[in-house]
């Protein structure tokens, strides 16, 4: 089951990407640099919180549910991908509300 989580993440990201591209909402809009900057900064911020969290042993990931590749000790590669999904889909939702 190691592949389930990453599969769900990528599947969702692809879906949001298609929507984004079709309606030119976020990363396909004319303001893409501004949005990309906000996404990158937010991912960095959330990774910082994650880093503090794993540093103090507050949370950790189930090795049976992840690929086993890490971006930082105890932060799996899935985490930045999840954070990208959250931030990107949030901005897409926001633009759809407009």
């Amino acid at each position, binding site marked *: 089951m190691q592949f389930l989580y990453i599969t769900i993440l990528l599947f969702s990201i692809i879906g949001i990407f298609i929507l984004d591209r079709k309606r030119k909402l976020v990363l396909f809009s004319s303001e893409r640099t501004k949005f990309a900057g906000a996404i990158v*900064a937010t991912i960095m*911020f959330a990774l910082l919180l994650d880093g503090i969290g794993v540093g*103090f*042993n*507050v*949370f950790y990931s*189930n090795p049976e549910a992840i690929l086993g590749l890490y971006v930082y000790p105890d932060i799996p590669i899935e985490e930045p991908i999840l954070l990208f999904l959250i931030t990107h889909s949030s901005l897409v*939702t*926001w633009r759809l509300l407009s």
Partner: protein
Amino acid sequence: MMTYLWIVGIPFVGLLFYDIFIGKRMVFQKKFQMFLGIFTIAMLLFDFYLTAWPVVLYNPALISGLRIGTIPIEDFLYGYAMILFLFNAQGLINSVLLVWKKVLVSSRPFSWINTAYPAALPIFLFQKTIGIDDLLIVLFFLIPYNFLVYGVNDVFDYESDKNNPRKQSIEGGLLEPKYHAVTLWIIGVFVLAFLPLMASRSLLLFGLFVGVILNAVFYSAKPLRLKSIPLLDSISSSLHFVLPAVVGLVWIGIPIFPTYIILAFFVWGIASHILGAIPDIVPDIRAKERTVATVFGKRKSVLLAGSGYIAAIWLSFVGGVPIWILIFLIPYFVNVIIILKLKESEDAQKNFRFFMYYNLVFGAITTMYVIYKTSFL
């Protein structure tokens, strides 16, 4: 104890304040509230999957235990903090750059060490090591404390500093009015964050810490504005550097208080403040600011500072400082004599700069001596 609630709670509250008072006030927008509703539903679904499967596990000792379904409530704070960050990202990035450029310069990075060192030295001397907790105190006196002292000072001094060329140097930059609000906000957040830490140690430490903050604020803030009351200006200024040492001593719960050493430091601080006020005599008189130096005049001020140094040395010898340290104090006295012989008080500027640089040299000598003492004896 660093629990999950603290880790996400502090950023969440900070970002909420940022959004309401500095940022885009998103939380008041109907559309944003609607978005948060959708976000919460999406989060419930996705986080349920993460926590029920489970992909992510929590240390039961470090979470509140309150859960919605399988989701710890702290996760929601994490999510909302992230969203607040995302929607204020541009402003936040600009604020960070602004802080970097303005507040940092305003806090005189050159002098940071002068407040951190007095806090760190007693801890190191008496514990022979500096732990993580101790490091927090030292860090407070390294950066936030200087934001406080000099930030408040630059806000309240803006009018009189406008015409002082010295303000463009290592002694800080001029802080334009449009940066005043953000400077004070950053200071407030930093200082408040340290209050619980002090209170958790002892009531005495908490009281002392409040005293430190009040002294720092009212050095330049109205209605007290201690810096324009002759003599009190020197005392308050000296306390800026002495109180960090006292906090360090109380922090480690020192059994025997080194009264003479602290007194020596206090007198030294007064003398140095008088010396530092000399180059400003003319601009201060022009700005109608009263300082020790404007009241006594240049000559008497220099003599006062010189006697202060002698008193400080005598006190430190009584307190147990080795005599040979005198050799390294000679430059201070040569400097005082040179200032005494100067015709114009403004020329003392370069001597005061020498004083600031020599402090680093003398600090390095002290440090080496302390390391030698603590590791070999």
